[in-house]
């Protein structure tokens, strides 16, 4: 079986959940090989983590010489690994997390390898006729689904978080240290400074099973939204109106120009539901809204809606949930 390269999504060697989802998808297509680009001393921990989800091989690229540069060196590293693998058999696919860095790495890699590129897949499966992976994408603010495949080169696919339920299955996890040669031209954009985002203690927005979001209707007070979110173990998000008003940082924004979430449950509070917001949440499994305005377009999408003031409905709901939990 051909190798499927999976770029490990991690923060300082701590593997993030989308990696396990990609490994799960990789097993459908071939033999999963994880590619870890990071600190050499973190490699053993990463190997332990990814082999639980089926990684047969783990290519380790020490990033000491390249971590100060934006994405370009990572594309070169993946290119060199893919070419090495191709000496035996072309990889069946290269799967990359669909985040800002991941998509840019994939774009550059597609040019380097002369490969077709599909971005933002929400599902990937092996084609029945052996024509390579078939992807599903959700487009036009979630109003269409598109099935596509790559017809040239090694298929490069960026996959969105929550596209598969991670399945544990022990892989060999054979570690292979890989020395890369990075060109000077890949070192032209420097990371001058980096500030890690402060941990909120809540689930990661794009990975959460439940997302509770607040909009203009909060009036800038997110206390009730956050209290309710905590009562059901949810991540907290915000509409663009709330972010533009400076009530929440951009990292919280859900919508076309922010995060696109697809949780089991999405609760929109004081959010009218403009098309740009819908683009970020329309594919959620169950949608609930609380809004004072019964005419708000968000109600067209909901499985359940409450016409009422979030400042009274949410605290009462939070209290009721806390009581039920005992």
């Amino acid at each position, binding site marked *: 079986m051909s190798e499927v390269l999976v770029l490990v999504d991690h*923060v300082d060697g701590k593997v993030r959940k989308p990696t396990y989802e990609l490994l799960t998808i990789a097993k459908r297509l071939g033999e999963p090989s994880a590619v870890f680009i990071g600190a050499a001393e973190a490699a053993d921990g990463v190997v332990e983590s990814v082999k639980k989800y089926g990684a047969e091989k783990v290519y380790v690229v020490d990033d000491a010489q390249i971590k100060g540069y*934006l994405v*370009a060196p990572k*594309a070169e590293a993946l290119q060199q690994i893919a070419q090495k693998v191709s000496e035996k058999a072309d990889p069946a696919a290269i799967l990359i997390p669909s*985040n*800002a860095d991941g*998509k*840019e790495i*994939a*774009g*550059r890699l597609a*040019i380097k390898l002369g490969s077709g*590129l*599909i*971005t933002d897949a929400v599902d990937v499966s092996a084609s029945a006729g052996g024509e390579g992976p078939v992807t599903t994408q959700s*487009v*036009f603010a*979630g*109003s*269409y*689904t598109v099935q*596509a*495949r*790559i*017809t040239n080169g090694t298929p490069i696919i960026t996959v969105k978080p929550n596209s598969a339920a991670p399945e544990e299955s022990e892989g060999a996890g054979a570690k292979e240290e890989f020395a890369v040669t990075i060109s000077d031209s890949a070192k*032209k*954009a*420097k*990371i*001058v*400074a*980096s*500030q*890690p*985002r402060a941990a909120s203690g809540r689930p990661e927005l794009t990975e959460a099973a439940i997302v509770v979001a607040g909009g203009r209707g909060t009036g800038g007070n997110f206390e009730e939204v956050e209290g309710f979110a905590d009562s*059901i173990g949810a991540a907290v998000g915000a509409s663009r109106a709330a972010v533009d008003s400076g009530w929440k*940082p951009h990292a919280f924004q859900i919508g*076309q120009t922010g995060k696109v979430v697809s949780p*089991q449950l999405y609760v929109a509070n004081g959010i009218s539901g403009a*098309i*740009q917001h819908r683009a970020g949440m*329309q594919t959620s499994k169950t949608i*609930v809204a609380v809004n004072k305005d019964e005419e708000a377009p968000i109600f*067209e*999408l*909901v499985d*359940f*809606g*409450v*016409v*009422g003031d979030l400042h*009274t*409905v949410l605290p*009462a*709901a939070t*209290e*009721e*949930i806390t009581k*039920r*939990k005992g």
Partner: protein
Amino acid sequence: MNIVICVKYVPDATADRHFEADNTVDRVGVPGLLSELDEYAVEQALQLKEKNAAGEGGEETTVTALTVGPAEAANAIKKALQMGADKGVHVVDDAIAGSDYLATSQVLAAAIKKIGEESPVDVVLCGMASTDATGSVIPAMLAERLDLPQVTLGSVIESQGKEFRIKRDGDTSTEVIGATAPLVLSVTDQSGEARYPSFKGIMAAKKKPLETWSLSDIGVDAGEVGLDAAWTLVEDTEQRPPRTQGEIVTDEDGSGAKALVEFLASKKFI
């Protein structure tokens, strides 16, 4: 300074966007406009121009709006000219229709090189994504093809002469990225509100030069682009059934909260 802004003509997100029989996006039958996210790139180009003019010596800056697309796509350039860009270049060729990311970036890169023959391009400016394909990959691909530093997804843009710095808000961290022009720069919708065209700007735009180039003008082989040459094949497009509205209750004396909790419990979320 010579700035090229890559702009895209997209179907209006508030209109009924759909696909054609060959599974390509209908770019003609749906009302279109300059992608909202490209307006931020136009704004940053104009701010750079104004800053250069105000600086020591008053450096002259030319802002060229570049688009690739069908005849209607000229409207995207016209909007950029109305906002304040100096001239436009429209690459239009029937062979381009249905191009994938690779071909689109190839055509853009070839056009940018041709623009640079007259006077070297210092900054290639892009929006953070198009509002139709939302791929966010073209700026990185242009950096790769043109062998320029990639300074992308800036929410704050600072420059001093040829030195550029941006703030890039990632999933797990916020970074400051620095590079020296010539470079490829992309900016987010956090970078600053885009201006509206003034009446004067709208009138002036009518006299600004807008060149139309074909593939042969930029030296790209028609056989390398378009739907038939694409390395991705869309096998099927399907409209998702519209969501059906569920139960809506009106809150009276706490009834809303109770009903909400009941609903969540019935779906096993509690």
